[in-house]
Structure formats: C-alpha cells, structure tokens
C-alpha cells in the first residue's frame, strides 16, 4: 500500500480530532487572508474615490477630517463656509473648475449632496474617470435630483420617481420635509465610490428645503431667487489650470483673512490617512500571525497525542517491514494533508464570508470588496501556512522515528 494512501486512511480513522485540527488551521488561514484583503481593498476603495482634483477647501480643520467628510462622507463637517468666500476663491486666475458641496441632509439613510451641474462635469474618480449616467440627465430645475446607482437599486427608484428629502442626517418620519417632493431626473452609473450612495440636488434646492418649502405660485420670481441664493456651503473642490499652482493657491486660501479656511491636497491627505491606518493594520496582522502560531501548536499537540495511541500501529508497520523513513513520511504527509485541507476550507470560508458580507460592508462603511482571485501576497501567505504545517510535522515524525520499534514491541503492563 502506498504510504500516502496509508496516511490518508489513518487520518480518516481518527476523523474527529483530524477535523478539529483542520478547522483550527482553516480559521487561522481565514483570519490571515481576511486581514490582508481588508487592508488591500480598503485602501483601493479610498484611493479610487477621488482623482484629478487639486485642492479641497472647507472650514478650518485637520486635513484628514476635511478629506473624510467632503469626499468619503465619513464623519461630520466642522463648520460651513460662507458663499462669499467661495466666490472670492473662484476669482483666482489659476482656478479652472470648482465643485461646491453642501452636506448635512439625508434621504432614507443616504446622504444628500447639494451641488451644481459642474459636479457631473468635473468630478473624477479611479484613474481619471468621469461620472456617467446610467439613465437620465443632470438636474436642471429646483425640485430635481440625480441619484447614485446604489440609491436607485436599494430604494427601487426610477426616472420620474418622487422622493422626499429630510433635514439632518438621521432620517425619521417626524423631520421629513413633507412639502418638498423631488423628481429623479438622472441615475448615475456605479462607480464604487460614495457617489453611488448619494442623492444630488442643486444648492438652491438645499436652501429651499431648509426654508421649509417654496410656494412658487405666490412668490414673485425675484424674491424667490434671492431667497434661494445659497448663503453657505460645506466645502468645495478645485481643479487648477496647472497642478504646479496648487501650492500658491493653497497658501492664499489658508491665509485668507475674511474666514478661516483650510485647503488640502487630496494626495497628501490620503497618504497621511494611510500612515495612520498602517498602525491598525500591523496590529491586525500581528494578531493573525499569532492565531496561525496557535493553530500550528494545536496541530502539533494533536499529532503528538495521537502518537501515544498509535504506538501499536507504528510497531506493526515496522514489524511488517516498514523502514523508519516510511514512518517518518507517514507523519509528515499527515501534517501536510491536514494543513492543506485547512487551507482549502479556510479559503472557501473566506469567499463565503466576502460573498455574504460585501453588500453590508459596502452599504455601511463604503468599502467595496470583490470576489477576486487570490493575489500574489495571499498565495505567499498560503505557502507560509503550508510550509509551517510541514515543518510542524517534523517534530512528531522524529519522535515516531525514534520510538517506533522500541515502543510497541516491549510489553508493558
């Protein structure tokens, strides 16, 4: 009988402990790979959210905070900025385009963004990809809205659907603005960024819902326009004529005397964010390495204790003509087999988990996980687990190699 087949049969004979070992290895593999995936994909979804934007300007705060609330819609703005300051910055000759953003409202759990049509023209994500419409067109009128792909999918909206916008971020029945129904005029194509989860309105519409609805029938046009003229916005993005000018405009904005403003360069802020994230990452990686060590020790324990039960087995094998190296191979192949099974199970669990959790993670945290093939690093991690499994097998193997003959043949009562 082939020695590997023998090892397989022997494992099957002790299936309960073997299965436990496989599970321990599987869980450690799962943890190791999941941490790696979260690390890589979280960063990728952050990095892909904004592109080709030179400066982001908001009320004075830290650059990471400004980046998080203006682009990723994480956390809340420190303050709004005056419409006049925005107009003042736009007068600078180096500005090519700008996107105003007004935050703070929501629609059934999705953030509402007040902006203008330049958002659809200039906002870019990924590798300088512009926004595209799945259907419809940008909003033009006051009570028109453009929704992200995920909003449309989850709430089942179509072009022409009427929606009601609430004031504030928590959207409960009591604070919905009943008088302001908005008509969906456009649905954006999926981007994998927070844009998918946003409801876009014009800045005037934001003023209108805060004014408690506008009754255009009895208000004369001029007064209406004055009323709906935006007084403040939350932040704005700037594209410059030349990227070299970023510094001088940033300096001008940061030293603007009329209002304390902060201008940040998204690239620097992102790198700073990664610097902070890497601490948490390393901690997680450390933990998963220790879980792997624990799994390997558990396997070693199992193998060693099974040797006690299998003294006879070994002795009989030796008596039947098995050489010490056969016994040695038997145990090494058992350890490798258990590790391999553990890895296969762990990887399957990982994919199951991603499949189950991806929609939730995407909806709650804006992190996008794809069921992509194993990456280079992930294969390396798997190889690391397999190699350590084989190495662990050496300890009981050497043990059995030494004792196999002596042990079972001497009768001890």
């Amino acid at each position: 009988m082939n020695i590997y087949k023998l090892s397989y049969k022997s494992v099957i004979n002790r299936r309960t402990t073997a299965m436990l070992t496989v599970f321990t290895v599987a869980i450690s593999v799962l943890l190791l790979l999941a941490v790696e995936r979260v690390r890589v994909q979280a960063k990728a979804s952050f990095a892909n959210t904004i592109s080709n934007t030179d400066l982001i300007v908001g009320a004075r705060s830290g650059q990471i905070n400004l980046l998080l609330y203006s682009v990723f819609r994480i956390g809340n703005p420190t303050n709004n900025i005056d419409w006049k300051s925005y107009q003042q910055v736009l007068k600078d000759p180096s500005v090519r385009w700008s996107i105003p953003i007004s935050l703070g409202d929501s629609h059934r759990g999705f953030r509402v963004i007040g902006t203008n049509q330049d958002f659809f023209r200039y906002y870019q994500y990924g590798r300088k990809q512009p926004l595209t419409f799945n259907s419809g067109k940008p909003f033009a009128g006051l009570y028109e809205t453009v929704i992200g792909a995920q909003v449309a999918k989850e709430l089942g909206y179509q072009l022409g659907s009427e929606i009601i916008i609430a004031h504030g971020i928590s959207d409960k029945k009591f604070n919905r603005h009943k008088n302001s129904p908005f008509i969906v005029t456009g649905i954006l194509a999926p981007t994998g960024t927070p844009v998918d989860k946003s409801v876009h309105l014009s800045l005037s519409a934001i003023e209108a819902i805060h004014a408690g609805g506008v009754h255009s029938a009895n208000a004369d046009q001029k007064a209406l326009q004055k009323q709906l003229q935006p007084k403040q916005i939350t932040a704005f993005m700037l594209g410059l004529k030349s990227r070299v000018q970023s510094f001088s405009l940033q300096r001008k904005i940061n030293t603007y005397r009329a209002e304390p403003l902060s201008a940040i360069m998204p690239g620097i802020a992102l790198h700073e964010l990664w610097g902070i994230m890497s601490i948490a990452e390393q901690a997680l990686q450390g933990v998963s390495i220790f879980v792997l060590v624990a799994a390997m020790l558990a396997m070693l324990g199992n193998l060693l204790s099974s040797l006690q039960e299998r003294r006879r087995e070994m002795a009989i094998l030796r008596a039947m003509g098995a050489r010490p190296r056969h016994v040695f191979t038997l145990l090494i192949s058992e350890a490798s087999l258990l590790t391999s099974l553990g890895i296969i199970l762990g990887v399957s669990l990982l994919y199951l988990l991603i499949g189950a959790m991806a929609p939730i993670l995407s909806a709650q945290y804006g992190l996008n996980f794809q069921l992509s093939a194993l990456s280079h690093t992930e294969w390396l991690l798997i190889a690391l687990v397999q190699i350590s499994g084989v190495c662990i097998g050496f300890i009981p193997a050497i043990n059995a190699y030494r004792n196999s003959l002596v042990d079972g043949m001497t009768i001890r009562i």
Partner: protein
Amino acid sequence: MKKFMTLLCGFLLCLPLYAQETELSWEDLIPISEKSIIDAWFAKQNSLDADQFSEQEPPPQGAVRTDLNGQVIKIAGFVIPLEGDEEQITELLLVPYFGACFHVPPPPQNQIVYVKFADGVALKELWDVIYVVGTLTAETTSHEVAQVGYSMQGIRTEEYSE
C-alpha cells in the same frame, strides 16, 4: 534566476543611455537673469538699516530656463503625491524643501517640477527625498493663463543618498 539575469543584462545595456542625463540642483532651474535680480534685491535688503522697512516686495520669480527643454535631467527633491494609490504613484510634484504647507511661503513656480510616470513608481514614505530622472519640459506660456513651470516625463527614480 534566468529572468533576473535578463533583467540585469537589459539594465546594463541601458546604462550608456542614462549617461546622457545631467544632474541639476534646484538653483540651476532659476534663469541666470532672475538670479542676478534676486541677488541684487537681497544685497539691497541687507544694506538697509534695521529700522527701515524694505521698500518693495521681492521681485516676481518663476521664470523657467527654456534651454533645458527636452533634456534628460536628474534632480533630487521631496515628493508630493498627486495621483495613484499607496503602492504606485503616477503623478507627483517634486519640491526643493519640506513643508510647503502652512507657515512657509510656497516655492516659486520654477522651483516645482510636475512629474508624470506612465507606469507609476513605488514610493516608500510620504515626504521622501528621491532622485527623479526624466525628460524636462519648460513651458513658457500656456494658452489659458500666462503660466510658467516645469513638467517632466519620468523615466525612473533613485534612492537619495547624502
């Protein structure tokens, strides 16, 4: 191993090409005419008495040396990432000093190089000093504004050593 050898051979073959690059300092990027104006201004400033205010702002800076246009140069500077992810950066600004942030005036236009890498480069640390080798373009005018500045098509980066 074979792959590595091929890479090494390829690298060695490319070496003569790199020999054409000229290493420049940041001062070399300032045109000589501008340099003499600045020197004169500083000399005047220093000759003033302590209780006198300087009469004028420093002369406008930022002209570029058009004679550098198209040359392959090597320059060391701080990296400010613009586009790309954590591993690969495709666009960056190279500046002569750290901290072009809040308390210091920004570098003049001719002291910033806008570098593009077609395939991206890896960057270890934010605010790393590295050597960038690439083909320099000195733009004197742009159709949108009277804009001057250096841009560069990056070829490779090298680690900076003191």
